[in-house]
Structure formats: C-alpha cells, structure tokens
C-alpha cells in the first residue's frame, strides 16, 4: 500500500535558557497509509506537537527525515504544505475576514485551481452547515461555528494528509463529538489523518493505530488489539500507563535514584 507519511529517526533538539539542551523529539519513526487515522498519544510535553510541527514544516528537524506524499519536509516544504491540512490550537482564523473569505483565501494560497475555488468553498459551506453565517466576520462567530470554519479551512484545498493536533482541547462535549465525526469522515474519504491527543477515549474511538509517545520517543505503536495483547491490559489508559512506566523504569537509574 502507498505510504503517505514517512518519518524516520526524527530528532528535534533545541537549547533553552535555564533548561539547557532539550530533546523534544528523540528518534521517532513511523509511517501512515491513505484512509488511516494514526494517533500520537502522550502526556503534555511528550513531543507530539513538535513532531507534528516538523511535519507541517513549521519547525526543522535537527536530524532524521520526514516526508509527506514523497516530499521531504526540509527540501520541498512548499510541496509538503500543499499536500497537508494543519489544524491545531495555534492555527486560528483571521478575525476580520468572513468565513467565506477565509476559505477562499486559503484555497487560493494553497494552490487550489482558481476556477474551482468558488465551487469548492460553496461545497464546504454546505457540507459543514455554515451557510447561515458564511458572510459574517469570523470574530463574531461562536466557538462552535469557528471550529467548523477552521476544519473547512484545513481541508479547503483537499489535501491527502490532514494533521489534527489536540483538536478537541477547549471544546465542549458536543463540539468534541462533532469534531470526532468529521475526522472519521475524512478517513472514509481516503485521507491520511495524523491525530494527537492526550484523551484516551478519543484515541480509542478514532485511531486505527496508536503510537504511545513519551519523552520524545515512541514506546509502542500498533493497533489497539495488538497493544492490548502486548501489554496484557484491556483499557487504553492502562496500556498507556504500562508503556510509560516501562519507559520510566528504563531510565530509573538516571532519574529517580535518591
């Protein structure tokens, strides 16, 4: 099967005043296929967001490689971004543009064929049920409305790969469920979804494969049944704790010796 995302021994190390060298991502490798939701599950600061930001070409890797649709994130960042929709807490919408203008703008700068922009925007407005407020300024929309526009913005250029970095953070239960539905729909359309979360139930419900990320490394990566069998635990929460404890035990002499 075609590989849409390939990450090999990816490292992101930076220097932070007061903390010294920080190994945010420390040798992560994985690959994804079309129509798959690949989840990065980890606590805050585990390295999920950094990995996804490297894939989105916002950050550069210190070493290792990452490629989307065969395009290297360092050598061909524009091609990577054309093939990618990136949704995160730090990708807000332009408050002074209307929902329609926002979609048109991102379709155009992402290289969507000019003559098809209007039709694509109309289609997304209908699909996400935002026609009532399509011509209202984004800063006048409710949180739920903004969320819909934001998802539409992410896929307006019909990218084959979509990254959702903690997409349900700050959303109420209904909006979070709505978000999960949309992500599942994208899978059925054949898109590759990279999904990061620290909410176990979300990962359990959505992901085809789950990678357990801790301290910049992937400590386990497989389907939920395979992770159950490897850990001997049933619930994802227990599975996660099992692998994290095992990882910590490995570094016990360094970290926890009194």
């Amino acid at each position, binding site marked *: 099967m075609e590989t849409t995302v390939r990450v090999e021994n990816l490292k992101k190390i930076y220097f932070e005043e007061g903390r010294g060298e920080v190994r945010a991502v420390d040798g992560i490798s994985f690959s994804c296929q079309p129509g798959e939701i690949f989840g990065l599950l980890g606590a805050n600061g585990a390295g999920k967001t950094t990995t996804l930001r490297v894939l989105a070409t916002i950050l550069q890797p210190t070493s290792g490689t990452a490629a989307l649709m065969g395009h290297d994130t360092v050598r061909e960042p524009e091609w990577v971004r054309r093939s990618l929709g990136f949704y995160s807490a730090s990708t807000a919408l*332009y408050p002074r543009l209307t929902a329609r203008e926002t979609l048109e703008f991102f379709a155009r700068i992402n290289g969507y064929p000019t003559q098809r922009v209007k039709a694509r925007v109309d289609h997304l407005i209908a699909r996400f049920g935002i026609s009532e407020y399509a011509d209202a300024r984004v800063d006048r929309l409710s949180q739920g409305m903004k969320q819909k526009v934001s998802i539409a913005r992410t896929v307006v250029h019909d990218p*084959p790969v979509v990254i959702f970095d903690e997409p349900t953070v700050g959303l109420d239960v209904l909006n979070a469920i709505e978000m999960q539905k949309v992500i599942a729909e994208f899978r059925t359309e054949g898109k590759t979804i990279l999904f990061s979360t620290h909410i176990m139930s979300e990962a359990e419900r959505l992901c085809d494969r789950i990678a357990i990320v801790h301290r910049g490394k992937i400590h386990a990566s497989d389907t939920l049944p395979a992770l159950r069998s490897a850990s001997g635990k049933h619930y994802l929460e227990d599975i996660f704790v099992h692998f994290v404890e095992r990882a910590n035990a490995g570094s016990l002499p360094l970290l926890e010796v009194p």
Partner: protein
Amino acid sequence: MQNPNATVQPSSAWSQIRTIYRYELRGALRERTIVINSILIPIFLYPLIMWAGFTGVMFIQGHSDSTKSRIAVLNVPREHPGLRARFERDRRINIVRDASATPDQIQRGNLDAIVEFVSPEAERAALPGNFTAKITFNGSKDRSNSARQRVEGAIERYRRDWVAREGRKLGISDAEWAGFKMTSRNLASEKQMGGFVLGMLIPVLFVVMVAAGCFYPAIDCTAGERERNTWETLMSSAAKRVHIVVAKYLYVTTLGGLAGALNLVAFALTLKPMFAPLLAQAGVTFNFAVPPAAIPLLILAAVLLAGFVAAGMMIFASFARTFKEGQAMIMPFYLLVMLPPIVLQSPGIQFTTTLALIPVVNVAMMVRSVVTGIYPWVQIGITIAVSLAMIALCVRLAAFILRFEDVMAGAYNGSIKQFFRERLFGKAKSSGGIQT
C-alpha cells in the same frame, strides 16, 4: 517535479503575493485602529489641529488685546505733560493712580508695570526735560510683558512726535531731522511665498504621517498575527515564506504611502482657506498651490519613505510576540524617523549631496524642495537611489530574520541586539536558530 495531488496546482510567486496582499489589505480596512491611523488621521487631524491652533491663537490674541494693562506712572517730567495724556489716550492702558506703587504689587499680580521717569544724571550733556523711562515689570507674566510693550510703544510714539514738533520749532523739517529711512521690497511672488511656507510645514507632517500610517499595520501583520494565533495558520499554508514577507511588506508600504499621500492632499486643500484669511489680516498674501510638476515627485517621495519605514518597522516587529511588545519595539525607530525633519525645520538648511545620502532626511528635503518649485535633480536622483538601496537592504534583512524558526514561531527570547550579534555577524548559539 510532479505534484501527486491532482487537485492542487503550483501557484506563481506573484499570484501568492497578490492573494496575501489583497486579503491583508481587506482585513486591515475593517480594523478601526488602522483605518483611523492610516486614513482618517492623515486626512483630518492636521488640518483640524491647525484650525484649532489658529482659532486658539486668534482667541488668545483677541483676549489679550481686550485686556487692559494696569500701569503706575510716576514722576512725569514737567517738561512733558503730554506723556501722561498719551498713556491716558491708549485704550489698552489703565493708569493706576497710586503714587506708592511698588514692585511687590507686580509680583502679586495687582499691577502690570511701573513706569518711572528719572533724570538722566549720568549724562553730562543732558538738557532740561531729558529723561530716562524706567519700566519695572515681571517677564514671567504675559500680562506684565504686554504692559511693558505697550508702555514702550507709547513712549516711542511720543518721542517721535516730540522730536518732530521741536524740530519744526527750530525750523528743521521732518525730512532733515529724520536723516534717512528704510524701505524693503520682497521679490518673492505670492506663489513663492506659499511654497516657502509649505516647504517649512509639509516635510515634518509628511514624515510623521507616513510613519504613523506604517506603525499599526507593521505590528498588526507580524506581532498582531502571533497574538491572534493566525501566524502559524498562514505559515502552514503552501505560500513561500518569502512571498508572505513580501506581501506583508507591500501591504504596510501601501498604508504608509497612502497616509502620506492623503495627508499631502488634505494639506493642499485646507491650507489656503485656513491660512489666507489670517495672513490677509497681517497684510500678506500667499498662494499655496503645489506646482503640478511636483506632484509625481511627491507621490514618489511618499512611496520611498513608506517603503523604508515599513521595512524598518517590520524588522523590529518581527521579534515581537504581542501587539504591546511590537509597539515597544517599534517606538524607538518611529521616534528616530521623526527626528531629522524636525531638525530640518531651520530655513537655512540646503538640500546638499551629503543630505541626499541620509535616509529619511533626503526624502524630507526632497519634499521641501519640490513644493517650493525647486528641482535639484542630482540630489533627487541620489535620494531615489539611496532610498531604494535602503529598502532592498531592509527587506532582505526582514526576510533573513524570519528565516529563523524561533523568530518565525515567536519563540525567540533574546534581545534584537543579541540576535544580530550572534546570527548576522557571528555563529548561531542554539539549534533554535535553525534557518528554514
């Protein structure tokens, strides 16, 4: 290279720049702060300030004229009884009949001046009736200063009349005792005088307006985007980083240039109706028409200045994470830009080749020169070349700065000085300084 995603096509550089520029501008025109600072203030503020200023001056002048000076007149010489009558005839003077007037009364504000006539004892050749008028006043009080001027004027007019009268008694005509007199002729036309006044006023306001026009857009499209979390949305789009920088730069330049041009137009339209009646009162006539040949050069000046100021401001704003930080970072540059034209207010300064080499100063001098109808083409040429070179340098610098991922992501923690020392002139210290 082939794009495997059939729906998405590579867009040209110009198409990306144009799209970002258009949407930036559209968003900005919906932002009240930007519209006020870049459009409304240039059109209305300065004409309004000038109108308010002149109205205020006229009011104060009228008020001052109608305020009587309270003066104590002591020891009027017997030989000059007409002196007291002269003071009494002056409607602006109120003689206080108090022989015991003291300087303390002036200090307390109960009296404006004391004029005391004393004999000029020191002068051996003094004739009977000669006197020295000793005026006591308080220079820190407007009313007292005005009293001194009125007293001096009244005595001077009395002296002139007295000398003429005494001369006639001795058979000396006015022409004989006067000896000589002075007249002057102003060769400047009304148009040239108008140009001179415009040349003094326009450069300062022009630079201030262009800088003010660039100020908010420069922060809004950099630090403002980070604060609103839209920066990363744009950076994760397929647009090239350099295209994003160029589009934002053009947008800031447009608003700065627009502010400058609108200010010039507003000025040209409002100066005549505002100044002409005031100057007519003083018996001076000015023509404030800007020479038609100057208009293209003024537009060019607006573009050049806006281009430089926009690039400079974007360099500083690139480091800011919030709007507040952006304001603090840009402010020193903003003040620095406004300083030279204020110094250049001196009328003696000429548009030399040396001045043409100094950014901002050269454009201000070019504006000053062309509005007076003088076109020093060599200096204008140097100004254009220097400004374009500075713009190119600043834009390259801005693009260089935004190539560093920590600056681009708003995660750079060092100072601007440290950034330039380490990354422009030395080695990057941390991996956070990776160039994208």
